[in-house]
C-alpha cells in the first residue's frame, strides 16, 4: 500500500467569486514510503496547492487524500495531527522565525505536538538542528542574528523537529548561492537516509531535482502531467520545454550531441553520469548500442 494516495483531488480558489480559479483538477497519484520525490511545474501549475493539500492546510473541493490508507479529512477536528505527520517547509521559511532564540523556535513544533518532557524535547531539538546542519552554538542566538542560509536551515529544523513521516519542502534552495544550495540539498539527503522518511522537494531547478529525486512528479495546468523515474522524465526534453520547463544542462549537451548524429543516450541527467557517458562515447565503447547505465 502506498503511504500517500490521492484520488481525483480537486481544488478551487475563490469558489463562488468572480476570481474563481481551478488550481487542481482531479489529481491521482501514489507515493511510497521512503521515496524521494521531485515536484516540478511552472508557476501556477498547481504544485504548491498540491503540497498544501497533502498536509491538510487546504481542504479539497472534492476527491480524497489517503495517508496510510486513511482519508485525512475523515475527522476534520483531527487535521492538526496530519500536519505533524506531514511536515511542510514553505518558500522563504526564514520569514516565519519568531522566537527569541533559535532553540525555542525549533522547540515550538514539538511542544505544540504535546512533548512536555524536557530531556526528550532537548534531544529532539538538538537532533533536528544537527539534521539541518546548524551548529550547537547557534541555538542560543536570536534567529535574527543568523545569516540567510542559517535562518533557512533553522526554519527547516523547526519542521524536522516535529519528526514528520513525510517532509515536504517548497523551493528550499530559492535565492541561495551554490554553497548554500549544496548544503541544504546534502542535509536533506542525509536526513532522509538516516530516518527513512519520505521526502517531497518542489523546485524550479532541474539540476537540483536531477541530483536528489528517485521519481519526478510533473504538474501542468492543475493536472499530473507525468510521474516517473527521474531518468525517464528528463528524457522528455521536448515535452518539458512545451510546458515551460527545462532539462538539466548536461542533458541538453547530450540532446545536442544526438542532433549532430552521435549515437548517445539522452537519459543523462547528472554530472557524474554525463562524465561517464561522454567518456564512453569518446572511447567508442558505446558501440553495442548500450547506453551508460
Amino acid at each position, binding site marked *: 500500500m502506498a503511504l500517500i494516495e490521492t484520488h481525483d483531488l480537486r481544488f478551487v480558489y475563490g469558489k463562488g467569486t468572480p476570481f474563481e480559479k481551478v488550481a487542481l483538477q482531479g489529481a491521482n497519484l501514489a507515493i511510497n514510503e521512503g521515496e524521494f520525490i521531485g515536484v516540478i511545474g511552472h508557476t501556477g501549475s498547481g504544485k504548491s496547492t498540491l503540497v498544501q493539500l497533502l498536509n491538510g492546510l487546504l481542504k479539497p473541493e472534492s476527491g480524497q487524500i489517503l495517508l496510510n490508507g486513511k482519508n485525512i479529512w475523515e475527522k476534520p477536528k483531527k487535521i492538526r495531527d496530519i500536519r505533524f505527520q506531514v511536515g511542510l517547509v514553505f518558500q522563504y521559511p526564514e520569514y516565519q522565525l519568531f522566537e527569541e532564540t533559535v532553540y525555542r523556535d525549533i522547540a515550538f513544533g514539538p511542544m505544540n505536538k504535546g512533548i512536555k518532557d524536557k530531556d526528550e524535547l532537548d534531544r529532539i531539538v538538538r537532533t533536528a538542528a544537527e539534521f539541518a546542519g546548524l551548529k550547537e552554538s547557534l541555538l542560543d542566538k536570536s534567529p535574527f542574528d543568523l545569516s540567510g542560509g542559517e535562518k533557512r536551515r533553522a526554519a527547516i529544523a523547526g519542521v524536522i523537529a516535529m519528526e514528520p513521516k513525510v517532509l515536504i519542502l517548497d523551493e528550499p534552495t530559492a*535565492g541561495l548561492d551554490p554553497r548554500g544550495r549544496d548544503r541544504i540539498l546534502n542535509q536533506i539527503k542525509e536526513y532522509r537516509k538516516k530516518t527513512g522518511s519520505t521526502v517531497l522537494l518542489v523546485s524550479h531547478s532541474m539540476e537540483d531535482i536531477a541530483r536528489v529525486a528517485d521519481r519526478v512528479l510533473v504538474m501542468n495546468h492543475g493536472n499530473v502531467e507525468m510521474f516517473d523515474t527521474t531518468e525517464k522524465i528528463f528524457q522528455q526534453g521536448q515535452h518539458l520545454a512545451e510546458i515551460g520547463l527545462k532539462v538539466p*544542462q548536461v542533458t541538453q549537451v547530450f540532446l545536442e550531441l544526438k542532433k549532430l548524429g552521435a549515437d548517445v543516450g539522452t537519459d543523462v541527467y547528472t554530472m557524474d553520469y554525463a562524465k561517464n557517458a561522454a567518456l564512453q562515447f569518446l572511447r567508442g565503447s558505446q558501440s553495442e548500442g548500450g547506453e551508460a547505465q
Partner: protein
Amino acid sequence: MDNINKPSEPTEPAALEVQISAQDVYFQYDSTDGTPPKEVLHGISMEIRKGEFVALLGHNGSGKSTMAKHMNAILLPSGGKVYVGGMDTADDNLLTEIRRTVGMVFQNPDNQLVATIVEEDVAFGPENLGIPSPEIRQLVDDALKAVGMYEYRRHAPHKLSGGQKQRVAIAGIIAMRPKCIVFDEPTAMLDPRGRQEVMETIDKLKNELGITVVLSTHYMDEAARADRVIVIDDGKLLIEGTPREVFSQIALLREHHLDVPQATELAQYLRSMGYDIPEDVLTPEECARAIWTAKTSGQ
C-alpha cells in the same frame, strides 16, 4: 562627465566610455546593538563601460549586492568614491540625476509593482520625474513594447506570472530612460520560463536600446551571456574577464564556493582526461560540438 580622470590607467584601448566607476570603495553596515560595525566592502574598484553587459558573481555575503546598491546611490561608500557618468554619488545635489541615469530592478517583483493596472505602474516613475502627460504616454507604450508586455497594458499586475511581473518592473525602469540598469538577482524567484523571459529582455535592452546592464546573479548560465564577468569575494574583486576567461578557472571558483556552468565542467573534465576539448566551453551547444569534433577528428 568625462572629467573623472584616471589617466594613470592606460589599460584597454579607451573604446568605451565609463558609465560607472568605483574607486577603492569601502563600506560598513552600522550595527544597532552596540557590536562593532561590519565592513562588507574592503577597497573594491571596478569600471562599467557604456553599453556593456557585466555580470556580478559572488556567494551570499560576498558583498556583491552591497556593491550593486552603490551603483545608484542607494548606499554610499564609507571610503572611496563611486561615480555614475562622472557624477559623485556622495553629492546630494546630484541624487535625482544619478537615479535617472541608473535604474535598479530587484529580486521580488511583487515588492516593485505599485499600481492596479500595468500601464499605470509603468507610468509611476516618469510621473514622479515630472514629465508631461503626452510624453509619458509615449514613454510607457515604448517601454511596454520593449519588454513584450504591450498587450497586457490594461491587465492587473498581480494576475501576471512571475516573469511577466518582472518584465513590467523592468518597463517601469525603462520608461525613465536610464542609461544603465542594475539587476539584483532578478530571476531568483522565477520558474524556468520566467527566467528565460527576463534574460531575453535583458539581452534586448543591451542590443536594441543600447542600455548598459549590470546583472548580479547566482546562475552561472546567466552570467555566461554577459560581455564581462566580475567575481566578488569577501568584499574584494577576485577575478574579472570574459565569461570564457573566468569560467575556465574552475578550481579558483570552487575554492570560493562558486560554480561553473555544467557544460563548462563537463568539457574541462574531458579535457583533463586527455581529450582535445577547448577549455573555454560555455554552452551545451558548444560542449556537444566540442565532443563531436574530438570524436570525429580522432578517428
